[in-house]
């Protein structure tokens, strides 16, 4: 007797499960059509109207999802079953994705607008000859600070000044933090000499007593809230808080030089809509479209002819588009090989102090 009940309930359960399965499976089936493109990208990197225009022009249905870290992107591509056709990893992650064979080589012949890109941002160490990636946005890692309170600042040394004790924020990022110390010593942020690195580590250990917090997430908000006076951070977020209180806050790429970062467009190795991905990449490299993207999200692109269409408030903002002499004193972060182990060890010592 109970069997009947159980059977009835089981049928119900099965029915419910398959029903919902079918409903949710629809988008999956559509993804197999020739007419779609799945983008996996950082938040606030691609204005909706650009996607809508592209869809209207080509009939390609675009869907996009957001990730919060390069590592989340890596994990997703490693699963082997993520259905994405276009991703935007940062420089160091491009190197990892290439090594793991998770992205595919790009056929430059399919990208006539490649010529629009600024050669200063091409052929970098993480992807020689741009065989796998193209620059999307770039920026600097610099210093946000309370200018109203501290007056003008132009040097990383301020982060080591005891008079700012407890009012300093550093990124919670080993390479970036070492970069700061190395720059104050006049060295490259890709330095591999153990003796020099040891010196940098000593300097950072001493600095720790002055640092209020190591934070890579909402450093700009902490600065804006007035909890710190000096914040080591990426230009994008700091520029945003500076724009709200331009009389109080400022962003500077210190005179010693700083890190250049770059996020790049890649096509995953397992993409099933490769041709559509090429169409989209070429589309966003068109000067006007690219300018529309930059105007929409306030990051700097590597597109030269696009500059003509970028609004002056963005093109003229040195925290978004730094002048050439500032770019000239910045460096990209390169893979330092085995030195990473040594840095890891020093970093642990600093953080564990």
């Amino acid at each position, binding site marked *: 007797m109970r069997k009947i009940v159980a059977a009835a309930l089981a049928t119900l359960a099965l029915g419910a499960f398959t029903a919902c399965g079918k409903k949710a499976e629809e988008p999956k089936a559509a993804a197999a059509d020739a007419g779609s493109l799945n983008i996996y990208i950082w*938040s606030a990197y691609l204005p*909706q109207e650009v996607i809508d225009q592209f869809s209207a022009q080509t009939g390609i249905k675009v869907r996009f999802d957001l990730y919060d870290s390069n590592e989340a992107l890596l994990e997703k591509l490693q*699963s082997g079953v993520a259905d994405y056709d276009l991703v935007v990893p940062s420089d160091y992650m491009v190197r990892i994705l290439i090594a793991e064979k998770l992205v595919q080589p790009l056929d430059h012949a399919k990208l006539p607008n490649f010529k629009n890109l600024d050669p200063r941002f091409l052929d970098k160490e993480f992807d020689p000859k741009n065989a796998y990636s193209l620059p999307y946005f770039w920026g600097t890692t610099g210093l946000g600070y309370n200018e109203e309170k501290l007056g003008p600042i132009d040097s990383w040394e301020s982060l080591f000044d005891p008079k700012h004790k407890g009012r300093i924020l550093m990124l919670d990022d080993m390479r970036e933090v070492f970069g700061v110390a190395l720059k104050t010593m006049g060295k490259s942020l890709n330095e591999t000499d153990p003796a020099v690195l040891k010196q940098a580590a000593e300097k950072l250990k001493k600095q720790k007593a002055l640092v209020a917090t190591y934070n890579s997430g909402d450093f700009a908000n902490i600065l804006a809230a007035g909890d710190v006076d000096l914040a080591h951070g990426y230009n994008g977020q700091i520029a945003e808080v500076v724009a709200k209180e331009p009389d109080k806050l400022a962003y500077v790429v210190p005179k010693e030089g700083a890190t250049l970062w770059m996020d790049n467009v890649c096509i995953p190795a397992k993409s099933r809509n490769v041709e559509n991905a090429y169409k989209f990449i070429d589309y966003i490299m068109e000067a006007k479209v690219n300018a529309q993207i930059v105007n929409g999200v306030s990051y700097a692109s590597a597109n030269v002819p696009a500059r003509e269409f970028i609004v002056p408030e963005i093109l003229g903002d040195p925290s978004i588009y730094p002048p050439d002499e500032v770019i000239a004193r910045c460096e990209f972060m390169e893979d330092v090989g085995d030195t990473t182990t040594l840095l890891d060890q020093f970093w642990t010592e600093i953080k564990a102090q």
Partner: protein
Amino acid sequence: MSEPGRLDLPERPVGRLAPAPARAKPFSWERALLGWHSLVVYLFLYVPILILILYSFNRSKQTAAWEGFTLEWYSRLLHNELILRAVKNSLVVALTTTAVTTIVGTLVALALARRNFGGKAATQAALYLPVIIPEIVVGAALVTFFGAVQMRLSLVTVIVAHVVFCVSYVAIVVRARLAGFDRSLEEAAADLGAGPWDTFRRVTLPIILPGILAGALLAFTLSIDDYVITSFVAGVGATTLPIQIYSMLKVGVTPEVNAVSTLLLLVTVALIALAQRMQQEPSAKGGKKK
């Protein structure tokens, strides 16, 4: 085997905000201290949430400073397609998960409570695994599994993953309800001529219904909150609300997020409070006796 009901999870302190009312007794220091202690503990737990709610009405876009009352963020929220899409995804996942886990979990609980079968002990042990294993391990295991069977990541894989970790909670809660079940009631019903279906529908089900509802609500809240497992198994078109919020961290969380969190919090708290009530009050119709 551990006592059924040991992992009886709805024991969250919702709905008991105030310290227990003191009976008319002479003043005692112990009691006063206990009251104060409870108050401090509850403040510690709930003040951050209250601040979040308060700031969803803050005119300033900066999270830190209070600049006056506004409903702007709630109205902006209604026009933010990305957040609305994420809310919709989260609701689809949570509702489907709840429907599936409630039925499957109840069946599992009934089977474990009523039947003897080979591998029963192992099944019982396996039931506790998703509750005990760290979420990150469940997430990594699931994504490996989907890779092995070549199932493309989408909203479906999110639902499957949520069913996997929620079904145990439902089964455990219903099982706890069944532990105090007086079988003689069913026998009496059968003696009086009720068939198996009538017995189930009119005797068994009403008695265990509070447990089933509590389990369902628990599954719903767990599913709608989940970030870790979802971040592993979400695919194309499956950005849920928690993932959306995390992704916004890079460019700064706006008060719209405070607004949507507040709305979600209200729903979740209401559901948990309801779940607790259901668990505590024996159903009037069922007339649970000990």
